[in-house]
């Protein structure tokens, strides 16, 4: 019997990159497969077992591995993929820094790195190294040795931290 015959077709609805969507799926399908099958190919398949981070997406603002999550677990959630981050014409600040810093070699790990960094930027307001390492500990890069990726992220985080501080200083105390 084929795998697909063992499971029943079903549907899952969630908000994907800001737009509500309903997809046909099966109970056994992983979110990564659903996304790639539907054209969201920026999210990569690396190890398929929760160790490399190439498949990282955000669910309700938290970074998760789409290769381990069943698509049905995303019902009613808010999912963001690399397609929601930036475009070739208009890259996000971190994506631009990665390009400018020559931090991309094969590029396979980059979508996952960008998603983990996004979770970090949205959840935290200060970025000490310990916290940055914590958010980025689930993304492997086989090419760069991390230094340039780290440098690019550090530049973005330093600017962001300074601007958050300035915003706070401008706001009068209640």
């Amino acid at each position, binding site marked *: 019997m084929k*795998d697909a015959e*063992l*499971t*029943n077709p*079903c549907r899952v609805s969630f908000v994907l990159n800001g737009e509500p969507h309903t997809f046909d799926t099966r*109970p*056994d399908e992983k979110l990564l497969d659903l996304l790639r099958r539907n054209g969201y190919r920026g999210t990569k398949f690396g190890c398929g*077992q*929760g*160790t490399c*981070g190439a498949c*990282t997406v955000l669910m309700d603002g*938290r*970074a*998760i*591995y789409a290769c*381990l*999550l*069943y698509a*049905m*677990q995303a*019902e009613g959630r808010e999912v963001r993929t690399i397609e929601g981050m930036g475009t070739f014409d208009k890259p996000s600040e971190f994506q631009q820094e990665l390009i400018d810093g020559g931090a991309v070699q094969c590029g396979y790990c980059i979508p996952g790195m960008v998603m*983990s960094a996004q*979770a970090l930027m949205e959840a935290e307001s200060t970025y000490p190294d310990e916290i940055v390492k*914590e*958010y*980025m*500990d*689930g993304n492997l890069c086989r090419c760069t040795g991390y230094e340039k990726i780290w440098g690019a992220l550090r530049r973005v985080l330093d600017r962001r931290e300074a601007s958050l501080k300035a915003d706070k200083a401008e706001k009068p105390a209640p």
Partner: protein
Amino acid sequence: MKLKEFVRPSSVEEAHQVLEELGTGGMALAGATALHFMQGEQPVTAVDITRLGLSYIREEGGYYRIGATTPLADIQRHRAPRWALHEICRCMATHQLRNISTIGGNISRVFPWADLPVVLLAMDASIVVYDGADEQEISADEFFRDQPARRLAGTGKLVVAVKVPALQAHHGFGSVKVVRTAAAFSMSTVAVCLSLAGEKVEAARVAVGAAVGIPQRLPEAEKLLAGRHIDAQTLDELARTVETGVACRSMEGMSPEYVKHLTGVTARDAAERAIQFARERAQ
């Protein structure tokens, strides 16, 4: 593990009922991160238990009650006076896994590398299980006496919470996990929870995991620490007692003898941390 259906009950009672009816054809699904390790079994119906209001950390009297579907990341980020669970959670897997793996999933089916059972044994925690009528509180000693998944399978019983005693002023806790790389599975995890009376250890609980098949307490080590003066000799003796008293498995190119030695040294480190914890938070 293959899934053939996916159901979302709306209450703990309904989840229990559905699971009981499905018997071994059903399975509670929390983060689903362990299914990857559970290959080759019959396809099952997944019963999603993550939307039942079981994700919380509450202080209740002398203990913390942690809901079964609380992600490890939330336990890691939680802060409270003498809260000690964040330390081990920070060392478990990666950020993405900690965001979705739950405390209930980590303890309901114990894999050899599971870290939380070790910590819960040392902390004298209890596990709250819903059996369709009542909540039963089971001591960690009883819950981890063998594979809990074998006892839970097909019964509809659900772990709904974990109760961890709040540490008091003279209490200390330390957990050490030995890994080759930051996100790797543990080679040896040891946790020590103790109470101090001046410069003496009043009582201690010591537990080990990863190096052994199923997490377990180390009664000989606990006996050795009780009433002993805190000094280098006591800690050396602790390391030797653990090394000689624990039956370790070989792993990743390491002989059982090496793993024993590693576990002895790790126990010493964990005890030192526990003592430091107690001294730093003496008030």
